[in-house]
């Protein structure tokens, strides 16, 4: 009994009746999410993997140029884009998928939502926190690559690494958004992560292979091909980063030429709109669903 000393007056700053604003709650949740993410194992794992892969890609491509000191759209940028295409969607999707579902499974979500917060605040707070942690991860990975490359004297087009970082972040946000939608809909954390990996496979491999089959077997028209590929955020990222890295899209053959001809200067806006759509739409669906049924 005497281990407990109950104070008659709790030391509190006084009773409040007005709940904190949306923004404040979102930031509170985001801050906590960010702290947890940065301390977590996956963050360190992804950051290290990203930097190591990036450096590997860069070194291989520098070595292959055979010391001729040539620059251009070489395998460095292409290799980095390729690596981002593979790794970043996986990062975003799994980070998002793990967010809500595992909290729900462990009962944390119920406890959190019993506080004066709305489900929307929790969801957007988590999104913000995870997005910032992904940003840190990408910046560390690509920044290390850039530093080592510049130390090696590798010539690269000015700005392309910044573009790559920015666009990778965009892709990460889009994938995070999809991941959070999966998380909101899934009943179990394991199901959410499994679904996320499946979606990753679909976006990264299956849709492209399907479109390729369509091109070869159905003689798909170029404009259809281009429009369909705009539906895949991974393809959008690829085209956009090629476009932004100072290369014209004619690298991508007839479809790229068509895009340049048809849309030319509007391509940046088109790609941005597609990417923004992939960030916004899943998040909006997720927040509507989550607000209606936070606990399933």
């Amino acid at each position: 009994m005497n281990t407990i000393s109950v104070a008659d007056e709790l030391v509190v700053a006084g009773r409040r009746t007005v709940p904190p604003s949306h923004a404040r709650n979102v930031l509170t949740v985001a801050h906590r999410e960010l702290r947890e993410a940065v301390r977590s194992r996956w963050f360190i794992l992804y950051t290290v993997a990203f930097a190591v892969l990036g450096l590997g890609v860069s070194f291989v491509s520098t070595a292959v140029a055979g010391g001729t000191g040539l620059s251009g759209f070489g395998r460095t940028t292409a290799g980095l884009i390729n690596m981002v295409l593979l790794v970043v969607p996986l990062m975003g999707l799994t980070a998002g998928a793990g967010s809500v579902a595992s909290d729900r499974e462990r009962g944390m979500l119920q406890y959190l939502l019993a506080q004066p917060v709305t489900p929307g605040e929790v969801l957007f707070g988590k999104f913000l926190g995870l997005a910032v942690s992904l940003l840190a991860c990408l910046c560390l990975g690509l920044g290390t690559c850039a530093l080592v490359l510049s130390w090696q004297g590798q010539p690269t087009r000015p700005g392309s690494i910044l573009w790559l970082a920015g666009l990778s972040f965009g892709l990460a946000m889009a994938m995070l958004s999809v991941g959070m939608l999966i998380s909101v809909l899934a009943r179990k954390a394991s199901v959410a992560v499994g679904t996320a990996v499946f979606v990753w496979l679909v976006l990264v491999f299956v849709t492209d292979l399907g479109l390729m089959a369509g091109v070869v077997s159905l003689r798909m028209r170029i404009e259809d091909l281009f429009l369909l590929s705009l539906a895949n955020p991974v393809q959008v990222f690829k085209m956009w980063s090629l476009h932004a890295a100072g290369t014209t899209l004619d690298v991508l053959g007839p479809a790229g030429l068509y895009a340049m001809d048809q849309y030319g200067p509007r391509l940046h806006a088109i790609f941005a709109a597609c990417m923004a759509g992939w960030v916004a739409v899943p998040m909006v669906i997720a927040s509507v669903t989550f607000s209606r049924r936070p606990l399933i």
Partner: protein
Amino acid sequence: MRRSMCAILLLACSAGGRPQPDEHPVVSPASVHPLGAKEAALPTGEIGRRIAAAADGEVVEIGPGVYHERIQVTRPLTLVGRGRPVIDGGGSGDIIEITAPGVTIKGFAVRNTGIDLEQENAAIRVLAGNAVIEDNVLEDVLFGIDLRESPGSVVKGNRIGGKLLDIARRGDGLRLWRCDHALVDSNIVHDGRDTLLWYSTDITVRGNSASRCRYGLHLMFSDDVKIEENVLSENSVGVYLMYSTGVELTRNQLLNNRGPSGYGIGLKETDQFSATDNLLVGNRVGVYIDGSPFSDKKPGEFTHNTIALNDIGLTFLPSARGNELTENNFIDNIDQVSVAGRGDLSGNRFWKGDRGNYWSDYTGYDQNGDGVGDFVYESQTLFDNLMDKEPKLRLFLFSPAQQAIEFVGRALPAVRPEAKFTDEVPLMRPVPARYVTADNRGGSGFLAAAGCVLTALGGGIVLAVTWPSRSRRTASGGEVSGLTLVFGGVR
């Protein structure tokens, strides 16, 4: 009349045949018209009066100033600008017309021609032989220097800037029509249509640069042409050789020539040519070979060229045969060698004796240390093969799906495509370059800065979150991170 002539010409070219010059009526591409026939001629100005007053062979010096007049040089004179006098065409018609042989025009700035493509408004039009056009600056011109039947002429050290019109409405920066034994040296052409040689023999084109044009250098039915040390960048095509014989390309740089038919060097039914020590970087297609060499008198020789970082290093149309490629560097082209459509490269050789080419994607090794790989280099990636057959598939370049297909191609011999060609003696190391490398390392410092910014941003976030600031730790040990300062928190 004029239109129908052009139409005939166009038809002849597009038919892909090989019409001889003699089959054409001998007229210049646009009929010669006297100055001022259409445009209201400006009153004869000071330069005109000086020319009229000069004796044959005299040197007429023109002082600085802006002269609004059209100039006709009808007698052999040397016209020299001192202090770069400006001759302004006022936006219509031609500006200088030379009708006498042996005229020299030197040191002028000529600007502002008309934009009538049918009249072919030109800054300097030469209609007689042995002209010397040197050290002039041409700005805002439809056609720059247009030489018609001016054998033995020299065009040297001029700078020619075209009008920033849509490519279909531009004129040629420099054009030689039936000008044998001419020298084109150290000119800079930008924002024009083509630099063009028609029906001209024994020409040297040396040290010029052309950028942002359609064809950096275009040969039509021109024989015995030496093309040396030119830098042709960011055009649709760097050098396009058509129906010409005896062309030597040496130490040229062909950089970033892109677009639907972006080639570094395009060869169409050209014969007895050689390309040596050229640098081809960042083009959509490094070398495009269509029906060349035309005869079997001499193989098409490609030696010591560096073909790097192009989307496609070398494209052969299936009809192309008789080329020999030795000691070239094929570095990091997305597709090293392709055959457009179906076909094979059996009529071309990729090695001679014991020397092949350097291929950056060669995976073999060299046990005996003779500098030559112990295994054959074969180009046979599945995706390359698919792309050759269906160019639309290029859209999926750099995607993981492409790698998946390559992986399948390597893992399953059943789907592995036939090798397009083989190099029996691939080189282990690149052949030392003999061109002057353009300095394009400027990005390195920027890269370092970008790297610093990114690392600082990422590290900053992590540190702010994980590094609790000592002074703000609460008595009971509640850790207050740096980020709390941003997000708020315990106060």
